[in-house]
């Protein structure tokens, strides 16, 4: 693949990543958000494979494979099971209306493109639009975490945010050392497991949710 094709493909994947992010923000049902985050991870795995072929970096193949297995299949499956165990369907409960969140998401996307345009020569070294897209994904993931009341939706936001960081790291560095990437992925798995256990435990013992915990006093 020539460098130019890689640029276009990464740009296109970036656009699709933004689209999945919009779907996550707009999702009114938690299932849709989970499917969207799975699609997002799949796209990141594809981006990893594309970068692997273009740079010849064999580690990137491993990383793309792990991303596909862990983030596109296992994590959504775990989330799906938790949703089934808790027997909730519309567990999104935004703090501010979803349409307002969508507007904020647009502001974030435009701002991150604007900001990374000011980087000038630094940006030239980075594949296509990967940097602004990555920043936008990360910040929008944080936005989802901040504007949802329930733990599960916040987890979806965390995974989306993590996807953004992953995408940026992959595109900016042309593949980080394998050990770091594997460490990051292990952290994500661990975080997901701990959070699901927490959610189920809290739910089964005191029937409360994250939103009820803000009045805790020590």
């Amino acid at each position, binding site marked *: 693949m020539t460098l130019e094709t890689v640029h276009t493909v990464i740009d296109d994947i*970036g*656009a699709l990543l933004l689209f999945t992010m919009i779907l996550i923000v707009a999702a009114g049902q938690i299932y849709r958000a989970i499917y969207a985050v799975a699609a997002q991870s799949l796209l990141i795995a594809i981006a990893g494979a594309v970068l692997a072929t273009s740079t010849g970096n064999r580690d990137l193949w491993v990383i793309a494979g792990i991303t596909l297995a862990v983030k596109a299949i296992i994590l959504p499956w775990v989330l799906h099971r938790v949703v089934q165990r808790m027997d909730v369907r519309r567990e999104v409960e935004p703090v501010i209306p979803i349409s307002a969140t969508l507007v904020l998401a647009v502001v974030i996307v435009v701002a991150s*493109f604007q900001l990374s345009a000011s980087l000038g020569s630094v940006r030239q070294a980075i594949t296509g639009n990967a940097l602004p897209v990555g920043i936008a994904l990360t910040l929008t993931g944080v936005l989802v975490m901040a504007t949802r009341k329930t733990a599960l939706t916040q987890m979806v936001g965390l995974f989306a945010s993590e996807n953004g960081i992953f995408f940026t790291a992959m595109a900016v560095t042309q593949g980080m050392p394998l050990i770091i990437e594997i460490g990051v992925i292990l952290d994500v798995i661990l975080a997901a497991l701990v959070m699901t256990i927490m959610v189920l435990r809290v739910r089964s013992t005191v029937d409360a949710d994250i939103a009820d915990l803000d009045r805790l006093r020590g």
Partner: protein
Amino acid sequence: MTGDRPLALVVLEMFLLVLLGPLFTGIIQKMKARLQCRQGAGILQPYRDLTKLFQKGAVQADTTSGFFRSIPVLVLAATVSAGALVPVVRMGPPAFPLGDAVMLLGLFALARFLTAVGALDAGGAFGGMGASREMTVAPLVEPVLMMVVFSTALAAGTTELGALAAHRGTSWFLAWGAADFLGFAAMLVLLPAETGRIPVDNPDTHLELTMLHEGMLLEHSGPGLGCMVLASHTRQIVTLGLVAALFFPAGPAGGPGATGVLLGAGSFAGKILVLAIYLALVESSYAKLRLFRVPQYLGVGFVCALVALALRIL
């Protein structure tokens, strides 16, 4: 002024669109029926309905003003002239001054406005309700459609649809820019709303409080209703043609001569058919949204279009 599309071709395309409009509605209805395990009416049913309507006499309410009678004709005229602006069998700029995409959207808005005025004129409760709902949804749909058009027009440097399609040339998915994906996503969200289909409107019911477009047609009858129905068929195929021109202009390049025209028409029909299948699938797999949820649904399209525009500019 030299161009690729002479007057005769544009007129031919316009008539083709008007003639084929009901056929595609019929195809969508047939596919929907099959997806719901029904036999369904034949794909020529919309033509039969239209002939029946045009043979009937017209009845109107006593409260209507003299303007009411001319509304169906005006709506049909606006929609059909919008159809002239869409390239069908051949891409490239027209050989004479014709409108552009902005004009097309303007004509659509005019048709929509006249329909709503007609519904209000008769003074019926359903008409008024349908009109007010249509006018609630329209400001959400039209800007997004405009932004999608602009996001592609920015790349081509023109808003004339034929030239826009020609600029895109034979590029398929692989040559799509990042903004095109998001623009197309916005268009897919928007299509059911613009063609009056299920997540937003329900084209099958006449007496349900959820309806938008059908509610406004209740006061029309006979040939007038026929004009309105034909206009909505035409509007649908013109919208699909607009999507095809913006995103899939490729196809057997319509060369000069009759074979070129036939090839172009064939590939156009294929593209419209794909979009029609999409509409039928969406209609069969989703439930109608509550009216107050519609802004959120269209908000997704709005955000996609805005991001597409941002990607194009920044």
